[in-house]
């Protein structure tokens, strides 16, 4: 039997889930930052532990990935100081499957002194998986 041909993560993918819940739920990867510094792309590969009983990727894990991706993107403009999610909205458009490489493409829409507005699309190849948006608080 031939091995199933699952998509692979790019060779330059950087693991960003070193500790805590990111480590437990991941691994999640950063792919590239947008040239203008206002967005970035991330990915993870759907493993057995990420699934639900219906055989699709669990919604909680998809939302976790989107939160991680947008929180990392916030650091592009905020730096290493604290920033945290205050508002998060997520629409489940289509199912993710075992073995999928699911990508998040994040864009920062507006930054004020105290908050950051972001949006993200999650895709698996050509399939749209989810739409996410949120507001991040800048500072502790």
């Amino acid at each position, binding site marked *: 039997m031939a091995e199933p041909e699952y998509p692979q993560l790019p060779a330059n993918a950087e693991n960003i889930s070193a500790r805590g*819940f990111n480590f437990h739920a991941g691994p999640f990867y950063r792919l590239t930052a947008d040239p203008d510094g206002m967005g970035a792309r991330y990915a993870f590969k759907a493993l057995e532990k990420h699934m639900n009983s219906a055989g699709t990727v669990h919604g*909680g894990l998809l939302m976790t990935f989107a939160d991680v991706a947008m929180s990392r993107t916030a650091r592009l403009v905020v730096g290493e100081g604290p920033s945290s999610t205050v508002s998060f909205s997520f629409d489940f458009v289509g199912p993710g499957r075992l073995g999928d490489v699911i990508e998040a493409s994040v864009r920062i829409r507006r930054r004020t002194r105290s908050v950051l507005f972001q949006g993200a699309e999650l895709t698996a190849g050509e399939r749209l998986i989810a739409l996410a948006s949120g507001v991040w608080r800048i500072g502790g």
Partner: protein
Amino acid sequence: MSTIPAGYVETRLIDPFEIHVGPVHERSVHGGQRYALLVDKRHVNGRGVVHGGMLLTFADAAFGQAAWRATDFANTVTLGMQAQFIKGVREGALIEVEPEVVRQTRTLLFIKGDFKVRSETILIVQSLWKLLESK
């Protein structure tokens, strides 16, 4: 460090990801069901605060249980979820929620809940669910 209070029983989780991040506990309260998550070291981020993704996963699990009970154990899927993170909490916190099914139509459920530590609301979630079929 808190523990699971008496009266709670462990929720029977079947989704691999929920089993991976759980356990979740539940108890009956005045006609509804209350769900609890005891935050442990797996659930926090690098600053020691519970991860937003873990809170959203707990919300998805608790509301999924509520949807399952409300539909006489039909299959449902999450269509959308909106959350406001009001206060960060740390390892050892017991987070409780009583999901409310606001409306149920032939194909949709509207579910919301206030997540509390003791009596303080730390998270508000509302969500939309699709009813797939009756069993």
